[in-house]
């Protein structure tokens, strides 16, 4: 089974997790830029974080045979710091131009403030300029309203359905999201948000089109193997192998593939260390 986890914060995870993910079939991931559990106080912290998503974390993943991509954005929580917002938004275009960046995200709402509106709108425009899809976080509090407000903002900006995924859906938001034409992401957690059996019921009710299933594993209590567990539960519930492959591989490939920057050939372990072989280090044949 091949698995693509379209939302997982690997910077917070261990090499044991990478090994277990590979063993479970995970071959590609997307790590969205998000907040770190506590506020950052300067733009330099964002620069270093974005660099680590593009450099060290990609290297780490490659050593375990997993293709790492990321999304880059100012998250809604920290968009509420006005000085920081201006500075971070001004350096984003440099990062949105980079290889391995497959969407603008996580953007969206946390408390739905005017500052969050401004950051969201500005980043939607950046996504359009860089021809990147958008990964939209939805709030924990007042989720249904936040979801509808996100959909309205995307529509007003003219974002087509296939260029945005609304993430962290549940039973009460899934219809609004799918009816809007945008994609629907589901974060399957050990105890909160969405569990494996509820996820399977949603797939039974709404089908497999435009649905992304992710673990959203991070520094909180979470499980980097949740997507595999959903795949197994789908099989147990009578979905065939093609349905499972569509949900856990082809759907994320189709969505993030719109960036034109997915790289899905499997890196050999240590591939980054011997990238393209010795011969490319100095243009001299290996061993010469």
């Amino acid at each position, binding site marked *: 089974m091949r698995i693509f986890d379209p939302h997982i914060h690997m910077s917070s995870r261990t090499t044991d997790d990478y090994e277990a993910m590979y063993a479970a079939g995970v071959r590609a991931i997307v790590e969205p830029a998000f907040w770190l559990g506590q506020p950052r106080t300067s733009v330099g912290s964002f620069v270093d974080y974005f660099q680590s998503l593009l450099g060290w974390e990609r290297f780490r993943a490659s050593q375990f045979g997993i293709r790492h991509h990321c999304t880059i954005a100012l998250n809604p929580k920290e968009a509420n710091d006005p000085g920081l917002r201006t500075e971070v938004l001004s*350096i984003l275009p*440099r990062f949105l*131009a980079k290889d*391995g960046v497959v969407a603008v995200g996580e953007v969206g709402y946390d408390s739905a403030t005017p500052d969050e509106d401004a950051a969201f709108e500005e980043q939607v425009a950046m996504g359009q300029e860089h021809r990147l899809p958008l990964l939209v976080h939805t709030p924990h509090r007042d989720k249904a309203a936040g979801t509808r407000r996100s959909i309205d903002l995307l529509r007003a900006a003219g974002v087509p359905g296939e260029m945005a995924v609304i993430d962290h859906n549940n039973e009460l938001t899934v219809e609004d999201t799918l009816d809007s034409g945008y994609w629907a992401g589901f974060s399957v957690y050990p105890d909160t948000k969405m569990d494996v059996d509820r996820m399977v019921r949603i797939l039974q009710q709404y089908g497999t089109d435009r649905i992304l299933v992710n673990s959203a594993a991070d520094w909180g209590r979470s499980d980097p193997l949740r997507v595999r567990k959903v795949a197994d539960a789908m099989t147990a519930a009578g979905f065939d192998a093609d349905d499972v492959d569509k949900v856990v591989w082809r759907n994320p490939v189709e969505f993030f593939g719109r960036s034109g920057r997915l790289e899905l050939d499997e890196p050999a372990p240590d591939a980054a260390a011997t990238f393209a072989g010795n011969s490319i*280090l*100095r*243009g*001299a044949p290996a061993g010469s």
Partner: protein
Amino acid sequence: MTGDELRQLLDRELEPAGRAWLAGAEAAVRKDPRVVQTAFPAAGRSVGRRLLAGDPPTGWTADDAARALLLITLGDAAGEQVPDLFGYGDADEQRAVVRSLHLLPPVPGAAELVAAASRSNDRRLVAASLGPWALAHLDDEAVAQSVLKCVFQEVPLTGLPGLAERATPRLSRMLAELAHERIAAGRPVPEDVWPLIERFPPEDTLARIEAEQEHPVPERRAAARAALASRRGQET
């Protein structure tokens, strides 16, 4: 490698789409140097990453070459743009900056950029830290540190015209001591350290390496004999 040679090599390999992208990016950068901030990162997916063919091997990939040409296009604005392109760059972008320094007008803080490259965990970036600009401008200590980093990262020291001329008695000794350390651990010694050791042979350390050939621990004896055989092989 001059800018013109690089352009010829690259042009032979470019597909029409890549050629059009490069021409457009160069024109846009000429008009507004800040465009380089988003064109430079996009070079890999726009022109590809193939090794450019040549005999002797060019050592340049298509993306490195395209990025070098964008930097050359900056002209006098290079000094202003290049340090940030390195600072915000991923390993591929940083490598292109370091490889291009000798093609550009003076870049403020260039020695610090090269030193940062040599401290990287990316072997191709480490390899670039001993390029033509570095060998012509870095002080002895910085060259020595980059050479040691290459040896530790198993980056070959071959194909670096001018490196032997930068050897110092201190570098020769450090490499000989590194060779001895490897032998004492029963591990192989990369053969490309010997030409640099031979520039200023540290007789005492070399005598200790010779003595390792009779060491009671078999792995040490074997490592010493293999290392000294590769040393002799390079003399002939």
